[in-house]
């Protein structure tokens, strides 16, 4: 395990040396990796760093406000409202890989605009060790702005956490006094709720996914899951108030893990499961049923797409 205090001291010095008097940008997703990288870089170079948070419209309930509050101390924080542009690009697309690709592309476009505006010379990224390994293979590309260096000729890319694992990043985040809301934050995928919606991303499904994720996170807090989520996975028949409904099926998933590489579906008690079911079906007339996913990883992955 890394020694967080020594690590922080060393990296702050390294970043300051590397960037010097120039400008840097970092994409802030709200996740623990990019937040920790941003905090480290900000300690090193202050307002020479512009942190960019893109509100894709695919975020969890209240996420954008939390970010605004947590990173309020950075004068240079930019929040880009890009909801409509993302939803427009995603319209009609049902293929999971294509969805990821569209989101990645749009991210780059949004980010590129800001990077040019602030005349950024360096790109800071929250890449961690498993990201590099997985990107070298063909499993998936991790960083939403991973294609950015091909568009903008940066002087350099700074990845202070490239040798760390997720649990070590959390140690560093704690040592940096990042609020618990960040250091203990559940992993959330770059493409956001889009990968928790099977098929086309629509406003209607997004609304269901956002509210259901909120219920799940709230109800499962006491189980301290490594990750808990809800996904809109299809349609099925239900009956509500003597009317037949053909409504959404929401899958609830809650896992414990150290590093996300393997995961165990959590054993939840019946009352908790029923409470989630009741809150989700009760508040949304277009949800017909709620199911709980009992599959470990492997054979399933944690996210649905």
């Amino acid at each position, binding site marked *: *395990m890394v020694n967080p205090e020594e690590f922080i001291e060393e990296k702050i010095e390294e970043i300051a040396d590397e960037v010097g008097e120039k400008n840097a940008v970092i994409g802030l997703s709200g996740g623990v990796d990019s937040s920790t990288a941003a905090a480290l870089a900000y300690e090193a170079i202050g307002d020479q760093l512009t942190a960019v948070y893109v509100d894709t419209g695919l975020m969890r309930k209240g996420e954008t406000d939390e970010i605004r509050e947590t990173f309020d101390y950075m004068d240079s924080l930019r929040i880009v409202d890009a909801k409509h542009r993302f939803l427009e690009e995603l319209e009609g697309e049902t293929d999971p890989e294509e969805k990821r690709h569209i989101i990645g592309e749009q991210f780059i476009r949004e980010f590129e605009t800001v990077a040019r505006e602030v005349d950024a010379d360096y790109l800071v990224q929250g890449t961690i*060790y*498993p990201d590099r*390994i*997985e990107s070298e*293979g063909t*499993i998936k590309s991790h960083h939403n702005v991973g294609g950015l260096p091909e568009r903008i000729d940066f002087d350099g890319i700074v990845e202070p956490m490239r040798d760390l*694992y997720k649990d070590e990043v959390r140690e560093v985040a704690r040592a940096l006094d990042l609020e618990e809301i960040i250091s203990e934050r559940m992993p959330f995928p770059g493409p956001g709720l889009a990968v928790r919606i099977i098929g086309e991303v629509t406003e209607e499904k997004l609304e269901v996914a956002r509210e259901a994720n909120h219920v799940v996170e709230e109800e499962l807090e006491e189980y301290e899951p490594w990750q808990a989520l809800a996904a809109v996975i299809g349609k099925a028949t239900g009956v509500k108030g003597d009317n037949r409904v053909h409504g959404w099926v929401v899958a609830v998933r809650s896992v414990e*893990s*150290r*590093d996300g*590489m*393997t*995961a*165990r579906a959590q054993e939840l008690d019946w009352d908790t499961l029923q409470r989630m079911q009741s809150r989700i079906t009760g508040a949304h007339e277009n949800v017909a049923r709620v199911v709980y996913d009992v599959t*470990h*990883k*492997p*054979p399933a992955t944690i996210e649905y797409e």
Partner: protein
Amino acid sequence: MTHIVVIDNHGQFTHLEQRALRDMGVDVELLDNDTPPEEIDADGIVLSGGPDMDDIGNCPDYLDLDVPVLGICLGMQLIADQLGGRVGGGEYGGYADVTVEILDDEDPLIGSLAPETRVWASHADEVKEVPEGFARTATSDVCGVEAMSDTERNLFGVQWHPEVAHTEEGEAVFENFLAVCDQQSAPRQ
């Protein structure tokens, strides 16, 4: 310090093998499986898992380097395949939680885990017959050969993943392998 190389057969968990050893204070190096065997100078070799028996690079040559080898998942299957054993599809895939029964409590690699151990696995194929010189050292309800050892040549294999967090006694497997490596390299030092 003991120097171990981890050979990457493109498995998802390969970097966790490196991490498990690093966290134990071992001098560990991750190498591609096309590294020429003559460039490997190590006290022990770990062959990682991976998706494809046709993509094992120079792994067969590493078995002749006269240093202890630990094959994990595909890494074990390739040892069996190369040395005259047999690998085939399992009737029942082994995923996630598996309870493994240890058959030889004196085995240097996994004997200390006897009588049984809870592991995490991810495989469709399995070793059907161990090669000559090997003993089957563990088994489970879903897979006949969960581990095998050749203590003459110090070649070992486990079908499960000792490197993942959900395997209960994964560290012990690496510690036992290190002890074998240290013992074999001792006279040279």
